[in-house]
């Protein structure tokens, strides 16, 4: 009765991308069964930035990521969605080998970047992390001045030594991150004195100051208000014209708004990957459909 209609209404509102035709098409097309954990969709792209093959990650005895294959394309935004604890952040950390800092973590498989396996024994993680930058969930600016925050990376990598060059890096990074106007007259004040949204944009500026080729973002907006979130999403779209971006997000609306490709994770398996449009409007796997229609998650 009234109650049921309201529930039905809610289900509709969760999926604004679903049109009536899409829903009809969906209900008619047979979906891959829930028990089948094989990946569905095109994991591979032409001319990828990074190619992951047969990635397995163990935390002690727990098998966190099971046999994953995925490509990250050039100048695209790849979003990873899925319920909590399904391995999205773990996979993200594999891409710049931040899992090395966790003692109990074991990563196997190959991750190729420019044809070289970054999990190889002879690879130095330091330049890897300079070319694969990371923005964390909780903004973590260094407790130093805004200028020092941005210049730490370029200084230790020797990207510039001249005072003018360094200043140029600060200005460019802040402009690209959309923070320049707000902080241009207080570059010497501590980075921790900014608001949450500004701090996160400072962290993004800090990451792009070392000129990475891929930017990883682990739920970058989860600690921010809607307006800051909108600013950062706009920033992401701009950045994707020069960089590849991988973003983990709990918000399906965000994934729908910004990403080119979407990957759905479920309990350590990559269930489905494809263009954002296709995954949200016509998912091929039953588990994907369950998640995006809000049946669980």
């Amino acid at each position, binding site marked *: 009765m009234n109650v049921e209609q309201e529930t039905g209404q809610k289900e509709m509102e969760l999926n604004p991308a679903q049109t009536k035709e899409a829903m009809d098409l969906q209900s008619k097309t047979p979906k891959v069964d829930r028990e089948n954990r094989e990946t569905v969709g095109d994991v591979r792209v032409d001319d990828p930035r990074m190619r992951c093959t047969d990635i397995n990650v163990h935390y002690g005895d727990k098998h966190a990521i099971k046999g994953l294959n995925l490509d990250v394309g050039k100048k695209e935004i790849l979003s990873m969605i899925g319920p909590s604890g399904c391995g999205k952040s773990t996979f993200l950390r594999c891409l710049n080998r931040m899992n090395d800092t966790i003692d109990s973590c074991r990563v196997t498989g190959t991750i190729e970047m420019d044809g070289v396996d970054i999990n190889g024994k002879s690879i130095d993680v330091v330049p890897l992390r*300079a070319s694969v930058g990371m923005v*964390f969930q*909780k903004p*973590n600016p260094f407790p130093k001045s805004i200028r020092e925050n941005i210049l730490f990376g370029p200084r*230790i*990598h020797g990207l510039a030594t001249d005072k003018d060059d360094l200043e140029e890096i600060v200005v460019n990074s802040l402009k690209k991150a959309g923070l320049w106007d707000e902080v241009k007259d207080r570059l010497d004040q501590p980075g921790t004195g900014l608001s949450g949204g500004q701090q996160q944009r400072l962290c993004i500026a800090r990451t792009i100051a070392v000129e990475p080729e891929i930017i990883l973002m682990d739920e970058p907006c989860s600690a921010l208000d809607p307006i800051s979130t909108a600013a950062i999403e706009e920033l992401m779209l701009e950045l994707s014209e020069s960089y590849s971006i991988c973003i983990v997000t709990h918000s399906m609306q965000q994934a729908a708004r910004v990403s080119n490709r979407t990957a759905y994770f479920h309990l350590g398996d990559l269930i489905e990957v494809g263009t954002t449009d296709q995954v949200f409007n016509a998912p091929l796997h039953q588990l994907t459909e369950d998640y995006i229609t809000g049946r669980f998650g």
Partner: protein
Amino acid sequence: MNNQQADTAPRRAIDVINAGMDRRKRSEKRFQLLGKLSIALAIGFLAMLLGSIVSKGYSAFQQTYVKLDVHLDAAKIDAENLNKGNYSGVIKESLRNMFPDVSGRREKIKLYSLVSQSAAYQLQAKVIEEPGLIGQTISIWVPADDEVDVFFKGHINRDIAEEDRRIKDNQIRWIDHFIEQNRIEKRFNTTFFNAGDSRNPESAGIWGAVVGSFYTLMVTLLLSFPVGVASAIYLEEFAPKNKFIDFIEVNINNLAAVPSIIFGLLGLAIFINFFGLPRSASFVGGLVLTLMTLPTIIISSRAALKSVPPSIKQAALGVGASPMQAIFYHVLPLAMPGILTGTILGMAQALGESAPLLMIGMVAFIVDIPAGIFDPSTVLPVQIFLWADSPERAFLERTSGAIMVLLGFLVLMNMVAVILRKQFERRW
């Protein structure tokens, strides 16, 4: 609807809580009272301790001086050979002139012992400075002997029978004569602060011990701070997690509880007997104290490093810093307040240590001010220990005076620790 009505209204949680409030408040008041009593007791004991030390020691900062008219007889002092002049003869003559009726060897000895033995040397220094004074009669103030000093400060009761005191009746008469003629007064005791140890209390000072303590502490700081902080960084950030490292950690924690005299025995056996380093040197004392304070510094540094939020280190690593760069540029500066506090407290502990230093020989009677870290020296706590053993009455007040100086240094070091911590504190 139910047929059976409940006899009482259903129990509300808030009523039960309110009923128990009185009991809770009473037991909290009792606990607070106990706390206040404990603090009062602690403060009481502290006040007693400080009071007894200060009351005994404040008079050590004054020294009695006697004014003598000395005739610098050219016969006694040769202008060509000022060092070998008979200055003590000059002083003795001046005393005889003041009290011409004194006769007999024993009485004369008592007369001469009114002034300090160092008076002759002070006169010598004055004549060497101004040789033109030879032949004239001048007035000089010289330090009084320690028995006179103690009597003049009022520590000896005149009414005690003469056999029971060291200062005799004839000496008291002479002192009264000085008082009438305004020839005796108390001045600030600079000797206490700039002289080394001496058998004569009026010539004894703590400066030798202070310099010895300074050198020892410098060696300790320069050795234990880098080694301690580096060990803490290694154990906290780089060491693999295996049984061997666990074993090392357990041993470091245990070393912090080892009695300090054991470190002295180690110093004696290894540094002095095996390596042949000079006995009683500040350097060896510093080495022994380094071993003693290393566990303290390592443990407090590790705690400080652990307290730095891991997000800072992750951010640094994410930008492509190597682990060493992440630690030196970001983690270590943030851990500095805790590390410095632990270091200064460790130094304050080392400053007050005497047992391990006794073992390596810093208990000798050293009169010279040490010029370097390999010269024999003593430290302030050991100096206090030596003076406490001396029989002279004047050393009693000087022991307490030295204790006051030592406590002053310790309070100063703790204040520096607090200020440094506040200075480096950052919020994140």
